[in-house]
């Protein structure tokens, strides 16, 4: 029997009290861990959201939205100075084109449906000068058998591929990614389009009477439209579609969310009236506000739970020391030093807290995910999807629903923090009890005789 085994054994001297203290302390430590995990998950999500959507600036030619509106496309020469502006880390330029059956061998994997047919009619009529019946899709246009065009996207930078094609995620399922700076006739093909046209890596198809080699196939989960597209190097699309140097949209990445507004203003000033330059600052602020509330709330709860845990062990140890005052006197009378007695009680306090920490970790692991989800859902329930079409462009397809999808992961670092916090709590409990122990004079043992 030594001081450690004696301290540990003392923990179990009163089983009812041990169970009660461990249960209450365990709940408190569990709540602390849940709040720690929630805060960590929410902060990760905020940072992830900021880094993925928060620091981009959308640049569109003035008056143009996708394939709608009027005006002039931007040019690569116009955008060149933008990439050298302060805080602009990169710029992704895109040029979109729609390939009909007259200029590609590919068949769209999207069915026209009622929406497609209506749009085709409108486009055909609006493109029929003087009503000669030629129209955009030709004189023999038959709305009933209309096939939507294939969307071709030319890009100069594959680092933000998903954003460039309006998807949330792009997964390369076969082959390799394209070199966006290449002038070769190569393409990435959406998986639906590839299936529709029996394309594999190494297959060829034609656009504008030019043979194009498939070097990769991609998939955009939950995005049928993007899955039916083509991606090629920007310069190749500019050349084949006879739109030299032209760019239909661009996304500038800014080094920090803090510099977003100043960089947006600088880009707008650089491009003048030729472009609509917008950023996602306001939308981002609105979108992450509920998450920031949850983060603050969980921090307050974390501090509160740790304080309550400390108080529980503190009061428990004070109660135990007062109860064993006479025993402390006996220890001192038979030759124990203050340090020895303090250590014995400190070990008892640490044992209490470590057992409670194990209970708390179990509670934390079980409760962190549902409680985080509950907190986030309650806080974000008043928010709806952000920005509509703009939001989809500016955020690269993200919506507030994605912000609610928070994964509360219990990592080793969280468990380590929990254990360290528990030891600090035990230390707090031990310190005060040590002070009380030091004050017990050995003569106390005689006084109660």
């Amino acid at each position, binding site marked *: 029997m030594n001081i450690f085994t004696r301290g540990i054994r003392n923990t179990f001297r009163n089983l009812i009290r041990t169970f009660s203290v461990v249960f209450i302390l365990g709940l408190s430590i569990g709540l602390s861990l849940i709040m720690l995990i929630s805060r960590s998950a929410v902060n990760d999500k905020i940072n992830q959201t900021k880094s993925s959507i928060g620091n981009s600036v959308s640049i569109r030619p003035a008056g143009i939205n996708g394939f709608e509106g009027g005006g002039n496309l931007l040019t690569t020469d116009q955008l060149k100075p933008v990439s050298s502006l302060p805080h602009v880390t990169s710029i992704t330029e895109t040029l979109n084109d729609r390939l009909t059956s007259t200029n590609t061998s590919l068949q769209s994997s999207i069915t026209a449906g009622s929406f497609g047919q209506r749009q085709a009619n409108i486009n055909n009529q609006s493109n029929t000068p003087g009503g000669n019946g030629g129209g955009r899709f030709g004189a023999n246009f038959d709305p009933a058998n209309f096939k939507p065009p294939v969307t071709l996207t030319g890009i100069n930078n594959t680092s933000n591929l998903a954003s460039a094609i309006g998807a949330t995620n792009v997964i390369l399922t076969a082959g390799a990614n394209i070199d966006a700076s290449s002038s070769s006739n190569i393409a990435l093909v959406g998986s639906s389009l590839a299936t529709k046209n029996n394309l594999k890596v190494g297959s060829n198809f034609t656009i504008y009477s030019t043979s194009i080699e498939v070097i990769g196939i991609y998939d955009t989960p939950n995005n049928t439209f993007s899955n039916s597209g083509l991606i090629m190097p920007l310069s190749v699309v500019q050349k084949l579609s006879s739109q030299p140097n032209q760019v239909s949209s661009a996304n500038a990445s800014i080094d920090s969310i803090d510099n977003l507004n100043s960089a947006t203003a600088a880009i707008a000033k650089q491009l003048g009236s030729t472009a609509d330059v917008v950023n996602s600052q306001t939308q981002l602020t609105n979108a992450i506000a509920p998450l920031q509330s949850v983060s603050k709330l969980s921090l307050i709860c974390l501090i509160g739970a740790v304080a309550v845990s400390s108080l529980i062990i503190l009061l428990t140890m004070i109660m135990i020391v007062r109860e064993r005052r006479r025993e402390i006197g006996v220890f001192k009378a038979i030759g124990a*030093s203050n340090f020895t007695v303090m250590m014995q009680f400190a070990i008892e306090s640490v044992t209490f807290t470590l057992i409670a920490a194990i209970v708390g970790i179990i509670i934390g692991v079980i409760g962190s995910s549902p409680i985080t989800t509950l907190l986030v859902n309650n806080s974000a329930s008043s928010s709806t999807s952000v920005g509509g079409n703009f939001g989809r462009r500016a955020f690269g397809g993200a919506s507030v629903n994605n912000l609610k999808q928070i994964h509360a992961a219990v990592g080793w670092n969280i468990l380590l923090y929990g254990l360290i916090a528990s030891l600090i709590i035990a230390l707090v409990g031990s310190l005060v009890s040590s002070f009380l122990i030091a004050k017990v004079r050995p003569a106390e043992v005689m006084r109660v005789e």
Partner: protein
Amino acid sequence: MLKIDNLVRSFNSGGTEVNAVNNISFEVPSNAFVSIIGKSGSGKSTLLSLLGALDKPTSGSIIVDDTDIAKLHDHALIKYRCNTIGFVFQSYNLIPNLSALENVMLPMEFANQAKSYRRDRAVKLLNEVGISQDKHNRKPGKLSGGEQQRVAIARALSNKPKLILADEPTGNLDSENGKMIFNLLHKLSKSEKTTIIVVTHDLTIAGKTDKSFKLSDGKLIK
């Protein structure tokens, strides 16, 4: 062995200084079996606390083997309590969640003795005081009052102290057990070559010791 000189211990009680021990002087030779008698509140236990270094005197000196323990610092006092003194209390004061054997081993742990030595000596002492082997691992709650006091005596002897201080060692025992405990202390004072000072109000016991001091209102009555 022990020389007390002009010992005073006063307490402040409601703004008035009360001398619980009032200018006491006496000497106790080595290996003597001495009793201190007196009525309740006469200052017996306070005197014992001072001799055991559980409390510090207001003035005067307590010389134990040429060392004035009244002038020792805290660390030296701990060593003194650990190595020179053995206590036997009226209500035994055994640690309730430790076995009889572990209770006897405890002072030796504080004296940094090796574990095997502690165990061997504790077993020997328990046997010596008449605790049978089958009761060595029993908790105090499972022992009778007489047996608990025997364990307490074994604990007091564990570090081979020069001085054993016993405060009313038979006070909680029936006459039969009280007599046995007294005889045990008497025997041990000879076999262990230890000075024993017993505080008691039992004149019969006091009459059987080598020397007896009587206290009244904190003063020694010759």
